């Protein structure tokens, strides 16, 4: 059996009286790309925020075989790196500063930083051209690249991506997903949540369908892509 990076059992999150996640169980193995797809309001973002300790939750989460650290900072330091919804770059800082901040996790190994920066620039040549500009001046697609690049700078053991396609034109969406595939091929384990089921399922090794706080289906990306019930679910005429 392959090495388990993330093991989530019965994860529950509620905001006041609203139960947003109602006992979610899933896992991610080393080297995989796993997608969680579902409509708006299903709880996808909440799921990732819970894993990063940005929301309080109950249940059990093991990361790299150990219980998930208690504080958001320690989670990052343990190697679970989160590219949040809507990118959340530091708009007033230069692109280079944004990327360098991403390398904070590795602060004890300064030598790797230049190497990682080169790697990010190779993946996203646009970022190199504009390294000195402030991140706020980037277009939506470039911002997404910068956000992913920032996370890669931390050499994540598991990369969480929250809706990388949001607000992007179709062409850019395809581009971002092919880059996600490439990142995965280079050895990064990826957990992806997406509303864009089509694209997410086509890059994912395995996927889970999340609806109103529960996982209703799971399978390989290909299986789910071919499942007629999925499309129906998305149009809500089930």
């Amino acid at each position, binding site marked *: 059996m392959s090495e388990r990076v993330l093991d989530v059992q019965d994860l529950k999150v509620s905001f006041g009286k609203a139960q947003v996640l109602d006992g979610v169980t899933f896992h991610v193995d080393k080297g995989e790309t796993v997608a969680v797809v579902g409509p708006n309001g299903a709880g996808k973002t909440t799921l990732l925020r819970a894993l990063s300790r940005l929301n309080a939750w109950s249940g059990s989460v093991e990361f790299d075989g150990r219980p998930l650290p208690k504080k958001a900072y320690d989670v990052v330091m343990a190697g679970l790196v989160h590219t949040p919804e809507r990118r959340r770059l530091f708009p007033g800082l230069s692109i280079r500063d944004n990327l360098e901040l991403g390398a904070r996790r590795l602060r004890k190994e300064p030598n790797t930083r230049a190497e990682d920066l080169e790697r990010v620039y190779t993946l996203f040549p646009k970022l190199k051209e504009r390294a000195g500009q402030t991140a706020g001046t980037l277009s939506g697609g470039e911002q997404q690249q910068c956000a992913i690049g920032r996370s890669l700078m931390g050499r994540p053991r598991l990369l969480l991506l929250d809706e990388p396609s949001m607000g992007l034109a179709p062409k850019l969406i395809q581009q971002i997903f092919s880059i996600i595939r490439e990142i995965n091929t280079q050895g990064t384990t990826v957990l992806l949540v997406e509303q864009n089921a089509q694209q997410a399922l086509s890059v994912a090794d395995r996927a889970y369908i999340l609806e109103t706080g529960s996982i209703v289906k799971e399978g390989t990306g290909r299986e789910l892509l071919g499942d007629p019930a999925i499309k129906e679910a998305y149009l*809500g005429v089930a």
Partner: protein
Amino acid sequence: MTALLEAEAVTRRFGGLTAVNEVSFTVEQGAAVGLIGANGAGKTTLFNCLTGFDKPTSGDVRLRGKSLLKLPRHKVVGSGVARTFQIVKPFPDLPVLANVMVPLIVRRTKGDVKAEALKVLQRVGLAHRAASPSSQLSEGDLKRLEMARALATGPELLLLDEPFAGLSTNEIGVLSETINQLKADGVTLVIVEHKIGSLLALVDRVIAMDQGRVIADGEPEAVMRDPAVVRAYLGGDPEAQEEAGHE
């Protein structure tokens, strides 16, 4: 005949981002219209522009032919447009009844304000909680309280912002009944909602938005079959879907 609500080329920009782009539509008296679209499609911004909580960069919003844009928010409410919030905003330290009394008081309702408020609570099925502090209500009851408070402003047009968000299937059923009752009472409704299945059971027309524009408008069945809507909801363009399908 003039429509109750007219949106004419409503556009709202934030810096470089055009959140709502030349949106036009009308809502007839007594209609129930659903407004759908993915996150970031511009629904909430449009919603805010319609209810006076935001001003469009250009375009016009009219109620019975009278522009609402120059009015301060409370006058928009006073002229007959009421709204609820996606994230409920009760007056948490006030009892349920007092929540509903506030709009009645500022409307200078004659007679017994409390009795009037109780009547409104009965309409949404919340009268039994009248004395509870609103901070003790369940999510479903809070949504109904939102609706009651909006109704107490005496609206001709009621705009509901994601009434079903955060509710259980059960609660959605109960709330749907309440909304249907309002419809039967002749309240004109515009409903923004992600839970499309539940929405379709309530409305007789759907407007779909994507990237700030209206991409479809008409009978619910037809709109849901519209290729542009299918694409916006499933993501990617049809060609890409084809490719992925053949892989």
